[in-house]
């Protein structure tokens, strides 16, 4: 049975095109469409219902050291009111999921995992963590929203005037809505320099969402569905489990994985440490025994569509395949400000042989076409509050 978030009725009555995703009924887009939603996020802001993400409360004496054995990042480096990216890996250094770990209090953590991996990670943690660590699945009690984009901070300041909101990336504060505690973290999955994720009890979720949506509308902030959530993360080069991360690919083949792996000396042993240490070594010395390929960003040089699964050739041989791809819109910028003009380009992430380097020409075989492309380091650079598309030569 597909689950409904507390905002199901709102989505349906506000033009949401509902689809099944990771066992949940969610909008892929609203009536203005994926492209308009993508562009609105980059110029003004976007409001997402991401209640399909799995949320586990983990607490008790020794919760930190127990989590430190199970996760690739080191929870003992957090403090209450901070969060960080982490992977959950197996002994072979392959990813089971990528996740965010929030420290709420001393000995109390919230782990946010991908919706599609919720059951898998829940039972893996049940088996991995000692019995005296308490686990509670809050997914169906505590809703999760995301507010991203240049105007997002101003909207929060209007909704919670004078309250302490998270300032630095990966900070977490708590505010109140209708008497209930609401957690706000400076995190996100769009690549926006300004963005927040909001944890609100199911009961208070619809009224908070309504407030964010109606006050946000005046600033150009719009509700955004799963379709633009995917194109936004792809434009930012962010990995998605099941596409870039795969259970049979070394975790550190994804560049962002390095943010979520702590191999510091003195840290007690954790699941996957030996294999991840080998991968990290090869990342630095160029050896390819454990890490033959890496995920890189590519752009098509001619008008074309490209999608995940397309084979990639370079220098006359096959070097890998796309893991994600789509045509993505962007604003034309004048200096650091977006104009009213837009353009589109085909962008992909690809799992490519380590020999392939940034700037190299490639050929992407999508359906019956052979599309010329180039490997790029990134599409964006951070300028002021905006994401500025980098000029490609």
């Amino acid at each position: 049975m597909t689950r409904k978030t507390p905002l199901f009725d709102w989505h349906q009555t506000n033009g949401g095109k509902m689809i099944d995703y990771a066992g949940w009924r969610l909008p892929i887009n609203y009536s203005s469409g994926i492209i308009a939603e993508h562009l609105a996020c980059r110029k003004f802001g976007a409001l997402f219902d991401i209640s399909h993400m799995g949320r586990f409360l983990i607490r008790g004496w020794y919760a930190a050291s127990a989590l430190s054995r199970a996760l690739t990042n080191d929870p003992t480096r957090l403090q209450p009111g901070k969060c960080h990216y982490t992977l959950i890996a197996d002994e072979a250094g392959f990813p089971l999921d990528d996740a965010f770990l929030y420290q709420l209090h001393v000995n109390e953590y919230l782990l946010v995992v991908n919706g599609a991996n919720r059951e898998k990670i829940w039972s893996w943690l049940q088996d991995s963590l000692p019995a005296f660590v308490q686990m509670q699945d809050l997914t169906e009690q505590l809703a999760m929203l995301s507010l991203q984009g240049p105007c997002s901070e101003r909207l929060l300041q209007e909704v919670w005037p004078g309250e302490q909101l998270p300032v630095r990336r990966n900070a977490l504060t708590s505010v109140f809505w209708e008497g209930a505690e609401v957690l706000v973290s400076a995190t996100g999955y769009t690549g926006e320099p300004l963005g927040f994720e909001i944890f609100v009890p199911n009961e208070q979720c619809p009224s908070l969402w309504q407030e964010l949506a109606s006050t946000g509308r005046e600033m150009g902030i719009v509700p955004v569905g799963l379709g633009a959530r995917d194109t936004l993360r792809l434009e930012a080069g962010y990995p998605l489990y099941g596409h870039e991360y795969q259970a049979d690919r070394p975790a550190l083949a994804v560049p962002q994985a390095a943010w979520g792996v702590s191999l510091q000396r003195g840290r007690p042993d954790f699941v996957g440490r030996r294999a991840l240490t080998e991968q990290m070594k090869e990342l630095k010395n160029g050896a390819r025994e454990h890490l033959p390929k890496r995920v890189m960003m590519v752009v098509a040089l001619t008008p074309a569509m490209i999608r995940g699964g397309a084979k990639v050739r370079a220098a006359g041989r096959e070097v890998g395949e796309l893991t994600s791809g789509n045509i993505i819109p962007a604003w034309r910028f004048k200096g650091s400000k977006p104009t009213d003009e837009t353009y589109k380009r085909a962008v992909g992430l690809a799992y490519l042989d380590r020999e392939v380097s940034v700037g190299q020409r490639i050929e992407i075989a999508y359906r019956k076409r052979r599309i010329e492309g180039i490997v790029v380091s990134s599409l964006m650079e951070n300028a002021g509050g905006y994401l500025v598309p980098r000029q490609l030569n």
Partner: protein
Amino acid sequence: MSDTKIPGDLKYSPEHEWVRLEGDVAVIGLTDYAQDQLGDVTFVELPEPGDEMSQMGEMCVVESVKVAADVYSPLSGVIDDVNSDLEDQPELINSDCYGQGWLVKIKDFPAAELDNLLDATAYENLLAGG
């Protein structure tokens, strides 16, 4: 789906293309239902004038952000013209599917094949039946 537009003067294929006869040429496009299902169209790969089509054979590919859709030719014949505006503005399929968002024109089609197509009422019934 009550607001889906189905002009009464067109013929339809069960694969959600429309056909409009203009003299001895058939203009072909995607229906309002099809463009709505696809969502934002981002790329169209059209055939070349002179290409030969067979009824219900592959005609072109329409890509949206969500999905790639094979479009099947509702008639056999020869491509007379293609809508090259779609190269720069594929979104015309969303904004004006029965007008500026047309796909191709086909000539030399067997008139008998028109009988395989649906009229507006039959197409509406097809959509209503899911």
